[in-house]
């Protein structure tokens, strides 16, 4: 009996129970309010529906709190109780060994049949299920009781002059506020989790060595000097911006100053397709087409240089994955970020400025170069900063096309690695969270978060300042 309770799919059951209790409470409250409406000559303060919502609110909120508490604490509670009952021989196991044993017990309990394992394990699994059943049973009883009390108590409060609507609306506003607060919670979650794991990492490796060391060899857990990663990230972002900045900017200028409205209506959405293509597709394109092409070109260049007698050995590394390939494709991806935002700010420049320039005899290009672009410059800079931040944080293109060797090399055809590549390769292994390898990924994540955040804040500041100018 207890074991069967222990195997209940509690997640689905809780969701179903909340729905059932909530709707039952709503209908009971509504029916009672309608009866009140018919039996009293006084005007009711709130419509029957609000009375129903009120009763439902009083029922669902405590039930929901219990359900959340269950999903957080049930497992710990069960395992804690189980651990106290374990035979004394388990006392010699280390904490990690014990935890992995308990995990396997939990897995076995979930799959119901545990044949073929030893007797002790089966006994422990059964006991686990019994304990889990107790927790589940207690939760369900508590849930039912709270729901009944909630319905009963709220029903008693319904009177013709009861201000149900005001209470429901206050409750609703609190829910809305909490939803908005999720944004703060998410940011706090990011900062806290990155900081917490990074601090653990910096206890093992000094922060100074991490930021200034030039040797990165995390896979063997030996060296954590992240400078080559910063260099690779910077190099690839630079190549990307060398592609995206001129193309994006000139596209924006052409679209806003030269193109006819029909051409603009066609070209702008097509350019924005570039921003909608998943980055893994760009990565595949870089790997399949661009990287081999660049390798071929580099080999041709090397041969040409040697044939001309300018050098005795190859100058370019010409590796199968290269910073140049990743940077070029990333540049293409970033074009719409530059062009869309710049287009908006160029359009926001008042027509009077252009007219004034024309009146002085300036040609169209002179007007653009000397009046429109300077006027839109803060916005354009903001667009470029946002694009840089996007390029620094981009992951899939570099994972697929930039390579994994941490080195500092100015040769764009050699493979460089970036912060994001290393985070992915460190986190995709089967390593625990106390391993310096895993922890170093969080330290890298912290750097990445801080840098992109700085770029975004500066960009938003610039935009804000600029907007005030023409309003």
């Amino acid at each position: 009996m207890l074991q069967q309770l222990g195997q209940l799919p509690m997640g689905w059951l809780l969701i179903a129970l909340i729905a059932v209790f909530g709707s039952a409470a709503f209908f009971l409250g509504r029916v009672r309010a309608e009866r009140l409406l018919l039996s009293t000559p006084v005007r009711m303060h709130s419509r029957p529906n609000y009375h129903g919502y009120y009763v439902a609110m009083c029922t669902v909120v405590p039930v929901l709190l219990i359900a959340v508490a269950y999903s957080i604490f049930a497992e710990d509670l069960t395992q804690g109780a189980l651990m106290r009952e374990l035979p004394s021989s388990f006392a010699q196991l280390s904490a990690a060994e014990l935890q992995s044993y308990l995990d396997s017990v939990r897995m076995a309990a979930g799959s119901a049949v545990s044949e073929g394992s030893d007797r002790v394990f089966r006994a422990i699994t059964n006991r686990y299920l019994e304990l889990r059943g107790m927790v589940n049973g207690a939760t369900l009883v508590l849930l039912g009781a709270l729901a009944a009390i909630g319905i009963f108590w709220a029903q008693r409060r319904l009177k013709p002059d009861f201000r149900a609507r005001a209470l429901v609306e206050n409750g609703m506003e609190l829910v809305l506020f909490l939803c908005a607060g999720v944004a703060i919670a998410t940011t706090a979650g990011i900062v806290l989790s990155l900081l917490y794991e990074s601090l653990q990492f910096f206890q093992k490796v000094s922060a100074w060595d991490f930021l200034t060391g030039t040797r990165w060899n995390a896979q063997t857990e030996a060296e954590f000097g992240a400078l080559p990663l910063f260099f690779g990230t910077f190099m690839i972002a630079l190549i990307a911006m060398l592609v995206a900045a001129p193309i994006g900017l000139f596209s924006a200028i052409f679209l806003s100053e030269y193109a006819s409205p029909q051409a603009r209506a066609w070209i702008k959405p097509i350019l924005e397709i570039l921003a909608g293509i998943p980055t893994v597709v760009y990565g595949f394109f870089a790997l399949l087409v661009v990287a081999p092409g660049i390798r071929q070109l580099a080999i041709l260049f090397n041969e040409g240089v040697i044939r001309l007698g300018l050098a005795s050995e190859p100058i370019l590394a010409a590796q199968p994955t290269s910073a140049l390939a990743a940077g070029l494709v990333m540049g293409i991806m970033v074009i719409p970020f530059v062009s869309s935002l710049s287009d908006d700010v160029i359009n926001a420049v008042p027509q009077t400025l252009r007219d004034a320039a024309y009146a002085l005899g300036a040609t169209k290009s002179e007007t653009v170069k000397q009046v429109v672009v300077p006027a839109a410059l803060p916005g354009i800079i903001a667009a470029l900063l946002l694009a840089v931040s996007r390029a620094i944080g981009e992951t899939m293109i570099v994972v697929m096309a930039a390579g994994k060797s941490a080195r500092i090399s100015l040769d764009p055809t050699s493979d460089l690695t970036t912060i994001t590549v290393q985070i992915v390769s460190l986190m995709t292994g089967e390593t625990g969270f106390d391993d310096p390898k895993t922890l170093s990924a969080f330290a890298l994540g912290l750097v990445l978060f801080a840098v992109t955040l700085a770029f975004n804040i500066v960009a938003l500041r610039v935009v804000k300042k600029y907007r005030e100018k023409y309003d």
Partner: protein
Amino acid sequence: MTDAVRTPITSAAAAKHLKRRRAADGRFRYYGLSAIFIALGALAVLVFTIGAQALSAATYHVVRYDITLDPAVVAPDGAGEPDQIARNVDGFYSLVRDNLLATFPEADADRDSRREVSDFVTRLAVLPTARMVARNPELVGSAISLKAPLNDDLDLYLKGNGVRERKIKAGAIETVLAEADGTYRVSGLGAFDPVVAGLAVASADRDADAVQMNVLLTAGVSTGRLTGISAGRARLELLTGQAQDFANARPTARIIISAESERTISDRQIAWTLALKEMGRIDRAPRMTLLTNSDSTYPELAGGLSAIVGSLLTMLITALVAMPIGILAAVYLEEFAPRNRVTEFIEVNINNLAAVPSIVFGLLGAALYINFLGMPRSAPLVGGLVLALMTFPVVIIASRAALKAVPPSVRAGALAVGASQMQTVFHHVVPLAAPGILTGAILGMARALGETAPLLLIGMVAFVGDVPRGPTDESTVMPVLIFSWSNNAERAWEPLTSAMIVVLLAFLLLMNGLVVFLRRRYERRW
């Protein structure tokens, strides 16, 4: 600015200066135009290369095997249980292999050639037939025609992009003479002139140090390897079929440019494939398995079904979490929030969250959901929650814009007839803003559907052979499957990956099409 008004030009220097300025003006316009063309050209190249690759993977070659379901093999020791038949992959596979050995008796000669013939079909490729027979046990003992996909390398060869070769029509062969060492001497007046010429061109194409290029000669179902070629005669080493087929025939010669040691397929396998094709046993069929099969280690069997289902489950969780939270938060910020520090802090947070790199959300998910809350790795539940955190700022920003677009007169009207603030918002403002909110939410979901990096960090990159049945089952998603496939070494994965990309893009196109439709149909300008 009409032509009639002419600028008074006072000197030759001024005229020259003006000319230079006008030339600069023209150049500037040209720079803008070329920027647009580069951007559009890059998009076109991307779409074209992936589309062309995907097109070649849209079909594949299927071989027909006419076999008799021998009860002793299919249902050994009289066990006719459907379950046992379905699991008897080895039995069905041996039937297929015996069929191939019967077609090509020369393959039974030694271990190597038996292995080469076994490569034609993957063991697991007979599984659908085994299941079909298990459902219809009355078929045991009867003759059926089993279809199984051809080995991926041979499939690529037939599509013309696995092995580089030159196809040349040889002249008429007059005599075929058996030699003492088992080879044949084939001769015909000038029969091999075109082959000699072709060889010359091919070795010029390749570097001078070229390895020896094999030449295969095919007539009907028979194929042999040519050596010692001169204009009128050559030595033929028969690979499959009958030497007599060459007599009085005008066979086709194939100069295989890659050396046999560099290839994944042997001359014999090419010969057998050509023979099967000649017998009409190979069909090119649409690769429906891309949508109906799950992942496999064999490219000819691999499909994206488990990833598609995984993506849908993940998106379901994302939508259930991100859309309500995002929309309600937007309603609060736009309609209820007092102008104070807290509100301002929330707004700053939302704007920053929308620009945080996606991989950071993956780190958050790994630390919070997996390490701290102990949720299962690789599950759509966790993936969906991670993507929800990433998507809801986007939903908030889009929803706020939609709410802002509803004119204040609507609010004033509702308030004037006695509605409360909450009633005004939820009975009037939100329904009017719903199309805008919905399109913003769908665009946010489309971004989440293409997201890869954060899901790698929570372990969704594991090989998943089964279709997930719930949000806590081990699973993968389409972009991650694309990433995993692109890491595979075999050539055949490349077009397959492109085909999967096209499937993903089709989903994205569908969502964006829905947005365009909703905008056209419901959006109103005030």
